[in-house]
């Protein structure tokens, strides 16, 4: 891949976003120095401008990028919240064991909030039980009012439990670089609250061995009420506030310019980044580095016009920089026909793709006519013509052979062959046969580059993305904010604009007011 893509240094730098340029420039300076030295030592025929490969040296190389595209280590977790019941704690710990190469940091947040929530839920019960256990005999008997309070306490606890399970108990989706402000706030609030209740309980009830049991029950019920209100606050802050759209995010992929617009509500930058990534994986077509470069036949023509022979000078170091600059200037002044070639090359490429696609479609249609589903009633007729009955996998393998060549050629022309191995094609074919799909449905996967989600392998390890931003990432979105989400070889640049304010007016139209006339110049009735 390195020697295929030779760009001049200028175009490489200008294609990257402002915010990441600082990092890039530092690294690029190192690298360009080393390259220049190597080209200076090259005393023979052609001069090449100090070009840089499109990818960093640190990013995965072309060959093995095909296999583990998009996968590096990951550290990600949770925007989930508040309280977790016991069984989910065990479920969380089991998850930890399954995907072992994960870091534990992924679950630190949810586990902590789970423990806190559990503690908060058990506190009222503790408040009720401790007097009974410790000084049962000296308690005032408490009749009907207490029973009413018991029932309401039980139901409120049940409601708290169920709503926490429904709302907050979700597997973590992403690790945010900074603390999630609202969640920390709520956890602190809950902790403070429960702690102060315990404090008062300890001082007013446990110490003097309070005898008014009804008061104690009332105290516990008030705690549960307050917990319900905190949960309402959590619901509003975490779930509801960001539902109403307020900003429009424009997401552009830096390598090929694919862009989308999304509407989001009031979020912090890091939460908006997670939201954008959620939608990136299903909306954007997959990033295919092989489709990016202009064919080198077009670009290298600019440089290969001049040949320079250095006639035996030993100290040509100074001269060659001057020479290469002169070459570049001269090449730029030459009449530039590369747009013409680009146009014809594109037309030729289109034609080639269409031809291969036509061949593929015909081959697949023909292949699908070779098999048909065996109906149940035909089994009885089989003693006459014993046909070999196949399961889907064998059927897929049987009809794969005639279409394999056309498929391979098509994938190679559209540069998709890293994404589809022969095994995956046969598996997909088997899937389509099982579900009675037509050849067109089978081909849907190959004719258009699908969203990135389609090519994800199933494993628990996540994706590593870096959030690059000039503002602190916990600040809220506002107009004119720009941040980018960077991966190793491409980035998504996100621009924030507020949604416009609409002044909606009203106009009433009487249904009887729709009248029409012929557009003749004059019409007279006689």
């Amino acid at each position: 891949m390195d020697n295929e893509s030779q760009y001049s240094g200028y175009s490489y730098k200008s294609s990257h976003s402002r915010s990441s340029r600082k990092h890039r420039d530092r690294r690029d300076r190192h690298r360009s120095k080393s390259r220049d030295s190597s080209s200076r030592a090259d005393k023979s025929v052609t001069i090449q401008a100090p070009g840089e490969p499109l990818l960093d040296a640190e990013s995965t190389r072309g060959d093995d990028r095909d296999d583990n595209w998009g996968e590096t280590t990951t550290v990600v977790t949770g925007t989930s919240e508040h309280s977790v019941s016991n069984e989910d704690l065990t479920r969380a710990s089991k998850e930890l064991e399954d995907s072992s190469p994960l870091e534990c940091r992924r679950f630190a947040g949810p586990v902590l909030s789970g423990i806190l929530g559990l503690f908060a839920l058990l506190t009222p019960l503790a408040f009720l039980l401790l007097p009974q256990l410790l000084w049962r005999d000296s308690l005032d008997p408490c009749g009907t009012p207490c029973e009413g309070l018991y029932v309401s306490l039980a139901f409120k606890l049940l409601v708290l439990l169920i709503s926490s399970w429904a709302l907050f108990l979700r597997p973590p989706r992403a690790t945010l670089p900074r603390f999630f402000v609202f969640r920390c706030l709520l956890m602190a609030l809950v902790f403070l609250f429960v702690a102060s209740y315990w404090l008062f309980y300890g001082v007013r009830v446990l110490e003097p061995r309070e005898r008014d049991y009804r008061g104690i029950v009332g105290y516990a019920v008030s705690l549960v009420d307050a917990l319900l209100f905190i949960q309402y606050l959590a619901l509003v802050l975490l779930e509801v506030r960001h539902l109403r759209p307020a900003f429009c995010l424009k997401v552009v992929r830096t390598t090929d310019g694919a862009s989308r617009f999304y509407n989001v509500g009031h979020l912090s930058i890091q939460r908006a980044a997670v939201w954008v990534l959620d939608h990136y994986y299903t909306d954007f077509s997959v990033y295919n580095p092989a489709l990016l470069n202009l064919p080198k036949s077009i670009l290298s023509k600019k440089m290969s016009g001049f040949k320079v022979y250095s006639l035996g000078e030993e100290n040509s170091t100074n001269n060659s920089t001057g020479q290469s600059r002169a070459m570049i200037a001269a090449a730029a002044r030459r009449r530039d026909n590369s747009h013409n070639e680009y146009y014809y090359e594109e037309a030729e490429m289109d034609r080639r793709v269409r031809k291969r696609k036509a061949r593929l479609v015909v081959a697949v249609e023909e292949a699908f006519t070779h098999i048909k589903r065996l109906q149940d009633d035909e089994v009885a007729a089989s003693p006459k013509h014993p046909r070999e009955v196949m399961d889907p996998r064998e059927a897929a393998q049987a009809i794969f052979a005639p279409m394999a060549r056309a498929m391979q050629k098509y994938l190679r022309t559209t540069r998709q062959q890293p994404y589809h191995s022969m095994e995956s094609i046969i598996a997909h074919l088997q899937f389509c046969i099982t579900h009675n799909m037509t050849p067109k449905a089978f081909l849907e996967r190959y004719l258009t580059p699908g969203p990135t989600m389609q090519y994800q392998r199933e494993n628990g390890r996540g994706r590593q993305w870096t959030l690059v931003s000039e503002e602190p990432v916990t600040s809220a979105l506002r107009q004119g904010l720009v941040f980018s989400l960077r991966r190793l070889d491409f980035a998504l640049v996100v621009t924030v604009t507020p949604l416009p304010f609409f002044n909606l007016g009203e106009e009433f139209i009487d249904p009887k007011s729709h009248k029409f006339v012929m557009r003749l110049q004059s019409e007279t009735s006689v």
Partner: protein
Amino acid sequence: FLSLFQQRIEIQKLREGDNLILGFSIGGGIDQDASQNPFSEDKADKGIYVTRVSKGGPAEVAGLRIGDKIMQVNGWDMTMVTHDQARKRLTKKKEDVVRLLITRKSLEETVRQSMMQH
């Protein structure tokens, strides 16, 4: 050869108060813009066309239809007249009956089709 199929329609004027009305509206004329005529096949045709027939009026009863081209009124030619002249010829107070020679597009088409079958 071209034969125009035409129909003769006789309309009895209806007296409404002080006026004698026929119950339809006309458009067209040599002083009008012929390209805005929706009924003519040839957009350069500056003849007089029936643009509206009032329901239940004398014209409808007599068989006049919207889109008909009026060729003659009581013997007077209407293919090369101005709009106002046409109106005057139709609304003569002394005449109770107008005899129109009209041509209708659907008639022409059926003629053309029957001619093509031979």
